[in-house]
């Protein structure tokens, strides 16, 4: 069975130590974590995580079942990629010179990204899009020189009126 991308939504109690229980589970069971994003929901007692991983169906099932056993995990569901809206937020700081400045601005506009800081020698862009979109932005930026990158990881919701 081929490995594929796994996107999982998890609702957890918003308590100290919960993140540790979850990351330790991934370490202990040898599951991969590509990205993990966590934030509070509209209910302050509950946080939502989006975890992306890679593996076959058996691994996907094990991730869901093992997560479900954790005491502070309230709900776990796979969000199939073709039924998900997935976005990642990224900040990227690039080198610019007088010669490259307009090309960089053009690139940022082409990706529908935003300039959030600039100096004579740097431009910082805020990019939000599918993970692959952000990958492409990073590739394109290499031509001008990347100073630093801060990627937030994938966040996912089901499409339509399905929810966790």
């Amino acid at each position, binding site marked *: 069975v081929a490995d594929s991308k796994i996107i999982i939504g998890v609702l957890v*109690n918003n308590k100290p130590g919960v993140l540790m229980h979850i990351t330790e589970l991934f370490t202990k069971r040898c599951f991969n974590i590509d990205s993990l994003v966590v934030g509070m929901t509209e209910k302050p007692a509950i946080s939502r995580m989006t975890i992306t991983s890679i593996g076959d169906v*058996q691994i996907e099932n094990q991730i869901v079942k093992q997560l479900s056993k954790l*005491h502070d995990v309230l709900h776990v569901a796979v969000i199939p990629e073709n039924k998900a809206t997935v976005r990642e937020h990224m900040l990227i700081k690039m080198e610019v010179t007088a010669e490259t400045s307009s090309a960089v601005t053009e690139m940022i506009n082409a990706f529908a990204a935003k300039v959030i800081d600039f100096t004579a020698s740097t431009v910082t862009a805020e990019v939000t899009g599918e993970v692959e979109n952000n990958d492409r932005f990073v590739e394109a930026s290499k031509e001008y020189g990347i100073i630093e990158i801060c990627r937030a990881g994938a966040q996912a919701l089901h499409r339509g009126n399905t929810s966790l």
Partner: protein
Amino acid sequence: VMNEVATHAPEANPASAKAEQNCPTTDSVSDAAQKETMTGAQIIVRSLIAQKVDVVFGYPGGQVLDLYDELYLHSKHIQHVITAHEQGAVHAADGFARATGKTGVVIATSGPGATNLVTGIATAQLDSIPLVAITGNVATTLLGKDSFQETDIFGITIPVTKHNYIVKNVEDLPGVLAEAFEVAQSGRPGPVLVDVPRDVQKALFSCNLDWQGENDQKVENALQVKGSISFSSGEISSFKKAAELIASSKRPLIYCGGGTLAAAAQQHVIDFADHIDAAIGCTIMGLTAIPASHPRNLGMTGMHGRELAIRAVDSADLIIAIGARFSDRATGNKEHFTQGKSFIHIDIDPAEIDKNILVDVALVGDMNATLNYLLAQLPGKQNAAWQKEIAEMRNSFCGAGTSRHASFSAKNIIKAVQERTDAETIIATDVGQHQMWVAQNYQFEKPRTFLTSGGLGTMGFGMGAAMGGCIGKSLATNSAPKKTVLFTGDGSFGMNLNEMATAVSQNLPLVIIVMNNGVLGMVRQWQSLFYDERYSQTTLSRATDFPALAQAFGANGCKAHTLSELNVALDEAFSAQGPYLIDCVINEDDRVLPMIPPGGTINDMLVDEEEKGENCG
């Protein structure tokens, strides 16, 4: 592979169950009860009393002084057993739980006290034993400063607990403690750790904690065996599929694990086996679920199983796993193990399904309810050809042997001990050859009489476990401590023999059989079979005089080189008051046979050629 999963765990409504977890003990409190201002330490001790804990094992220290002060004041409610080392205490709490089915409790101080528990907690985790460990820690104001005897035991024990807590506010303490017991003993049992900083033990909180017996009924209900339950349509279709597999099977075999004991489902398993005319093989953890003398019981399966059981598993066309998890030691080579068979997996833990092998049908939930319902779906059947095949195998294969055939062998030592025990006697082991010899040769007739570290394989487990089992059995039967046997090896015993001190101080009637071969026998066996007899660090070259050591601890002991010496020693040991050690000198090249080499198949099985036919007991 068809894969149908039914889930109906009694606690399978996690969202609703978990939603209430922050409401401390409200449902166990009568309306009339008055709020009382208590310290954290008082809350802990009274919570233990409320949970019907009658004994705790532990070791005091700087960060549990307040807790120990409360234990002192409540000593008529709770007996505290101080061990020689925290590891002995946690194994004792574990042995108590294994012998009684109740949750074991261990207490330790911060830092080294807490870290000394880790091996014992991991031991309980791998064998799904209900355990609550309570540790002290430095005050919350000192946490994170590398304070004296500070350690992050919460972080350390995440991988080896079912769940764990650090309680930083005293108002959370009653709820966390009630929840800790609930988590430890519900569903698939396991260890829970609660870390309580010293200032939380001192802090005051006003609550109406019921600790003097009002919730008896609730505790009783929680322990009650659940008999019936309703099923969803998805579950019913899984039951249908399982019923079809069983109906079409000609050679069904039940592979019975420790989950059977956790669910107290022994009788249901036997009834079910009778109904479908199945053979039964047991994992090491399931060994006492089915009486050794039961005609359907073929004995232990797996790496060092009985040849009869191993061959029957191999010929079966349907394996019905009940409360077992297909560990590598039980299956050997998984491709060979699964070839030409169907699998039905019955377990309370959904994550066990398809974890180690992919199964055709899974029935997840309460074992008694599942077996009841499944049995009702099936007409009874007979598998005459299968039973005939098994009867023939029974005559051909016995299996358990030691390769050399001196009369003073493990097999004969175990037999001599068994002549003096009864079906209720608790038998504990350490880990290694002696453990496998006991698992193969001792005839267990009653549930929970075999205390052994099956999953983690913890050398040093035995002394603590034997003490905890002995005390637990005595409290459960409201009688004086009865003879309890520890089979150990000179290697394992060396790890925690300090607990002899505890056995003496508690005047526990332990009979300690040290199978002394002067080597780390199991590792040596592997070195002789797979490493060209390069005995790297397994020849101990020690000069420990075990009987003298026993005497130095205040116990009795003697040496036995022959069966007749052993018989004399055993007569004395079984009439002695306190602990009695018998140092049995056996040959260093005795092996545990049969053996399926790791990752191997039945075709690789090493057997003791002489242990066949008329030699089969």
